C-alpha cells in the first residue's frame, strides 16, 4: 500500500481523535507504518478538531501534509475548515445530517460525497457511536486497515467499557459495519462534484 493521507475533522467532543487513535493502532498492529498527529490549540473544548493520519508500507516523512487523499468533515464548520486540504485527487466526504453553506465545499476534489452518519447513529443505533460509524466509513472508503484489525483495536481501546456492559461491544461492532457499508454504497453511487 502506498502512502494514504487522511484528514478527519469534527467538533471537539465528537470523538475524531479517538477514531484516529484506534485506526492507527490497528494499522500499527498490522505492521504498517503509520503516523497520527492531532491539531491542538489553546481551547480546552469546542472548535474544530482535526486528526492528520498517514498510512504507508514505507517510512513516513513529515507528520503533517498540505493535501489529503481523503478528507472527512463531520460538522458544518469542519467543512470550511478542511476544504483547503482538498485538491483534484482528494475524496471529500461530509455528513449529510447538518446544514451548511455549500459554497464552503472545496473548489477542487476528485469526488465529493455525503454520508448520513449522524442520522443513522441517532435513528438506528445510538448517538454515542457516531464516531465509530465514521471509523467504519473510513475503512469502507480506503481499506487502510482490515475490518478485523480495527475490531481488535476497538476492543482494546474500549475493553473497560465492554466489561461493564457487554451489549456495547455488539453496538460498536454494528456501528462499524454500518459505517463501512454506508461508505461503500456512497462510493458506488458516484455522487460527484457536478451533481
Amino acid at each position: 500500500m502506498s502512502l494514504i493521507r487522511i484528514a478527519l475533522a469534527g467538533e471537539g467532543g465528537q470523538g475524531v481523535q479517538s477514531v484516529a487513535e484506534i485506526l492507527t493502532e490497528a494499522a500499527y498492529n498490522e505492521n504498517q507504518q503509520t503516523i497520527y498527529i492531532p491539531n491542538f490549540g489553546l481551547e480546552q473544548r469546542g472548535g474544530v478538531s482535526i486528526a492528520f493520519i498517514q498510512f504507508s508500507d514505507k517510512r513516513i516523512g513529515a507528520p503533517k501534509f498540505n493535501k489529503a487523499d481523503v478528507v472527512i468533515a463531520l460538522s458544518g464548520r469542519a467543512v470550511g475548515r478542511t476544504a483547503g486540504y482538498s485538491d483534484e485527487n482528494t475524496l471529500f466526504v461530509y455528513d449529510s445530517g447538518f446544514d451548511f453553506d455549500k459554497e464552503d465545499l472545496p473548489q477542487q476534489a476528485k469526488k465529493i460525497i455525503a454520508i448520513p452518519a449522524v442520522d443513522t447513529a441517532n435513528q438506528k443505533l445510538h448517538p454515542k457511536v457516531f464516531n465509530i460509524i465514521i471509523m467504519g466509513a473510513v475503512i469502507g472508503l480506503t481499506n487502510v486497515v482490515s475490518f478485523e484489525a480495527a475490531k481488535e483495536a476497538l476492543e482494546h481501546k474500549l475493553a473497560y467499557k465492554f466489561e461493564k456492559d457487554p451489549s456495547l461491544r455488539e453496538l460498536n461492532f454494528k456501528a462499524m459495519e454500518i459505517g463501512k457499508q454506508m461508505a461503500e454504497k456512497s462510493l458506488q453511487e458516484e455522487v460527484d462534484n457536478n451533481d
Partner: protein
Amino acid sequence: MEKIIGEPKKAFMTGNETVAWACLAAGADIMFGYPITPQNEVMHYWTRLAPKYNRGFLQTEDELSAGFTTCGAVQAGKKAFTATAGPGNVLMQEPFGMAEAMRLPVLSIIQQRGGPSSGTVVYSQQEVTLTTYGGNGEGHRIVYSTATHQEIYDYVIKGFNIAWKYRFPTFVLGDGYQAKMREPLEMYDPEDKGIEIIKPYPLIGIPGNIGESREPQHLCNIYSLEEELYEVLMKVSAEYEAISPEIVEFEARYCEDADIIIISHGVVSRAADDAVKILRAQGIKAGYFRPITLRPFPQQQLRDVIAQSGAEHLLIAESAYGQLERLTKQEIYGETVKIDNLFMPGVGIIDYDIIKKVKSII
C-alpha cells in the same frame, strides 16, 4: 540497573510518552517541572509511571524553580531532569546558565512551540538559538535535535550519559509535532544493548577531608575578580572544544555528487530526506545533511561534505526565520558555496515545499 522494559518491545505512542519511558529506562530518579504545552504529557506520563518504579516528581511554582531544583538535585547525586517549551524555556535560561557555570549534569527536554512570547502552543523550530546559546554565557551546552520517536528514546538515554560523563548541561530538542504525534518505536533496557549507564554521583557533601583525601569541590557561579572568572571560562571553553569532536553527530546522504545540499534538523529533516529522494528520481542531484548535535555543531563534517561534493548551493530549510542558518553560517565561515534558505517560522515543512524551492534555485 533496574530492568524496566525487559525484552525489546515495539510501541506506538506519542513523543512525550516516549520521553517518560526513556527517562525511566535511563534510571532517572526525579523530574522537576511546570506545565506548559506541548510538553505537558511528559509530566503526565512521568507522574503515572514514577510511583510504580519508586521515582520522584515535584511540580514547582514556575520554570525558574523547576530549573533550579533540577540543578540542586544533580548536586545531591540524583539523576534529575526537566522538560519545558517556549516561554518556559526562556525562564529556564537562568538555571541553565547556572548549570553551565557549575558544570551540572542537567538533562532537559525541550518541545519547541511557536514564538515569540506565547506564540502558539503547536510547533516551531524557533528555540534553536535559545537552547544552544541562551543565557548570559558562552553556550557550553550539548544539544541533540531529534527527528523520530526512536531518536527521542535513544537520545534521552544517551543525553543522561553525556551529561554525567562530561558535565555540561544537555538538551534533547524536540518540537510540538514530535511531542504530540504517535509513531512506532522500539523500547529497550539500555544495558541489554550494551549501553553502559553512567551512575549519578553526588557533587557536594562527598566523604573525605579536603586537602587530605580529596580535592575541594569548587562549584561556583559567582566570582569576586574578573580574572578568576576569565580563567575559569578559558579553561571550560578549551575543555568544551576538546570534547566536541567526540560528541558531534550528523547524517549525510547523497552528498558525494550533489549540486545542492539541503541542510535541515529535527523533524524537518524527515521532509528533506523525502525531498532529496524525489529530486534524485527526477535527475536533480540533491544531497542531505543534518546536524544531530546543534551544539557542538558538526562543523568539520559539513565543510568536508561541501568540499567533496563540490556543491554550488546549500539550501537551509527550517521552521524558523534563520536560526539554523545563523548557526550554520558562523560554523562554516569562509566557505564560498551559495546559501539559499527556506524559512517557514512556526509552521511545518513538507517535501513539496523543499522540492519547489530547490527547483527555483537550480
